[in-house]
């Protein structure tokens, strides 16, 4: 599978990565190799195999609907951000 520059840029965009031109060129080749390696699995017929959703073999891990104290309060959490206004997190304008 060919991974061209526009595909790399699209993936970078989806992943919120900023890449320079060098990286865009190099990563296309890297990704092609990775996909080629993984594609060896395509040789197997898996049409009757259920996909893996989890590896712990658990189900129905639920909790009760009770409010519990949290390990961090609003101030602790807001302190992790760059800037706040009136207890809200300030971010560049998005629309």
């Amino acid at each position, binding site marked *: 599978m060919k991974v061209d520059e526009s595909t790399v840029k*699209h993936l970078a965009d*989806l992943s*919120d990565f900023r890449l320079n031109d060098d990286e865009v060129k190099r990563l296309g080749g890297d990704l092609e190799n990775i996909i080629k390696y993984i594609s060896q699995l395509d040789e197997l017929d898996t049409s009757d195999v259920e*996909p*893996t*959703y*989890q*590896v*712990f073999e*658990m*189900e*129905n*891990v*639920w*909790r*009760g*609907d*009770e*409010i*519990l104290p*949290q*390990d*961090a309060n*609003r101030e602790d*959490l*807001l302190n*992790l951000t760059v800037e706040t*206004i*009136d*207890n*809200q*997190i*300030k*971010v*560049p*304008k*998005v*629309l």
Partner: protein
Amino acid sequence: MKYIPTIGIECHVQLCTKTKLFSEVDNDARGKEPNSCVSPVDYALPGMLPRLNGEAIRLAILAGRAMNCKINENSRFDRKHYFYPDSPKGYQITQYYAPIIGEGYVELPSGVKVKIEHAHLEGDAGKLTHFGSYSLVDLNRVDTPLIEIVSMPDIHSAKDAHDYCKELWRLMRYAGVTYGDLYNGNMRFDVNTSVAPEGSKKLGTRTEVKNLNSFRSVERAVEYEIARQTKLLEAGEKVVQETLGWSDATGKTTGQRSKEEAKDYRYMPEPDLPPIHLTTEFIKEESAKLPLMPADYRTKFGSVIAGDTLEVLLDYPELMQKLGEIDEKYVKNASNLFASVLLAEEKSAEYLNDLPSAKQLNDLAEMNEKKELSSTATKEVFLRLFDPQMRGKDTRAIAKELGVIQENDLGALEVIVDAVLAKPETKKAQDDFRAGEEKVIGFLVGQVMKESHGKANPSAVQEILRKKLA
């Protein structure tokens, strides 16, 4: 050429659980400060793991059954990836491949049936407020449990789109799964509309109007889109598939002007949440908790309460439940008071939280039907019953205190009538009546009413007068 519209609707319903879908933090942020109902899980701190709220599963079962849907024994969660400041995780936890609620249908008051494709559980996103050069983020709403209800493209008019949304709102409130406060976004609608030439087997290109939060906006937005798309097609132009916003002020839809590229959410199974497996017994047990639905009340009261009145009252599950507790023979009486007196009151919304007891309402209806209370007095006592201090008090005692019980005791009435007839100022009226002047009886009844301080039953008084003057 005639064009046929086709509409499908996605509805997000916020569930009224105590805690959020994936953490033990307060889910009810009404009137609370920004970012005060946020856990480290909502904040997506490294290493934080979601813990599924079992109550959300129970409510999802009720919501599903309210829409006559199949509940899937096996469901699970997936990650839907996107970067936006309203979602610290960088993905939304939703059910993409195996939703908890399967196919079903919603029947509108008109009898039209709208099929439900499926409905799934997911976490809500935070709230953004936009300012000149920046936006502010409040994460209180992050991972409030939602069910997203996806209808089939079964709707063919703006009116039906309106009625479908309204019926969903009713169903969800009757099922008790949401506060249903539309103004505060407890239910939000995304509407897909397309038009195609009559007889065409293929649907036209659709547009999606997002985030409508009133039935009226849904109806207007659909009307507008049908007209806009029909005009484009008639002019030989094409409808562009896009996401639109709706403005109530201008009454128009507008493009969001974002890049219209194919969405790529890279869904993957959520590895931190084990799948849900519901046994048949569990589903049955939980489904049995579903109270009577609007359709049940339509069957139950359809022959007693007038159709228009019933549809108005159906907006208030509390009232319908109360009517269900009242003696069958007084349901009509009480329903009229609810519709014509209570809902006309300015504070009726507050009253709904604390309704009079069924006994109080039964007694009131009985006193009214026995003419112990005039219709004016019945209304007065009825409203008095909503005073929280009257709770547990006998209706008759309340009416007595208000001094509005009509005198029906014929013996007592006769005494008053005799006293009035003995008065010289009524002499002429008595003579006139005997001479055949019918309408003078009104004057005499009035005199007796006055003498009784308004407590006499006017029709009983008239009967006695006619006997005496015969």
